[in-house]
């Protein structure tokens, strides 16, 4: 391969990279769409997700302080993410299905 052809082919690789990059980044959900307040309110008002107050009434949250509550879309599913502080001072992230209120799992952050 001559040097000139090498550089030409190099530009072809650049073009492929740019086009695939643009295609991949094209359908990103806008920032905060997953925890956007308007969308959250809309979903709650339409009855598609349970209200946060209903979730907070769950018995497994007794005695825990809610530091942060987010409604997020994770892998196409609406999920409440709660950051909880227990009596021992440990911070714990827990996920709940936003439609049924079912617990999904947690992640200890300390």
């Amino acid at each position: 391969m001559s040097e000139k052809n090498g550089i030409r082919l190099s530009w072809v690789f650049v073009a492929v990279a740019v086009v695939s990059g643009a295609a991949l980044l094209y359908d990103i959900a806008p920032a905060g769409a997953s925890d956007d307040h308007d969308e959250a309110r809309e979903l709650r008002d339409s009855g598609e997700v349970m209200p946060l107050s209903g979730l907070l009434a769950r018995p497994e949250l007794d005695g825990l302080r809610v530091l942060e509550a987010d409604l997020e879309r994770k892998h196409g599913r609406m999920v409440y993410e709660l950051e909880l502080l227990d009596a021992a001072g440990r911070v714990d992230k827990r996920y709940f299905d936003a439609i049924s209120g079912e617990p999904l799992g947690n992640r200890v952050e300390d």
Partner: protein
Amino acid sequence: MVLENQKVLVWDPFVRVFHWSLVLFYLVAWVSAEEWASLHEQAGYFILVLLGLRIVWGVIGTQHARFRDFVYGGTVTVGYLRSLRAGTPRHYLGHNPAGGWMVIALLLSLAVAGVSGILIGDAEHGVWKEIHEGSANLTLLLVVVHVSGVVLASLIHGENLVRAMLTGHKMRRSEDV
């Protein structure tokens, strides 16, 4: 005849675009990890596409882009590292042996991070998540060593390697490998 101090194009356009895109999207993936899932995932896919293209380019690309040009055996690499410690390394027009292995390490580490990220799927825990976070952290460590190596080599040889990766040009020297 090889002319002394001749300006040559060492890094072709794709090598440069690849390098800086990787820098940008590794940063994007890192920052968006906990904040913006869809951006994090698409940045990861794009990094994998870039890696795939780079591997093909490493076989068919221009002279200094090829693995054959910069992956040296153990003896040469150890010898290079010794000469680096002594402060008298040889000047390479392309990647030096240590830099060459850094390229391989970064490609592998990022490939593991990308693939394990896909394999996490819906899980909030699990072995893939551990591997994903481990390889992402390893990549950061490699980046720190890489940048240190670039600074060190730039100082020793009195050339600006960061600029070379932007413009593609380096000055050829008569004693070059």
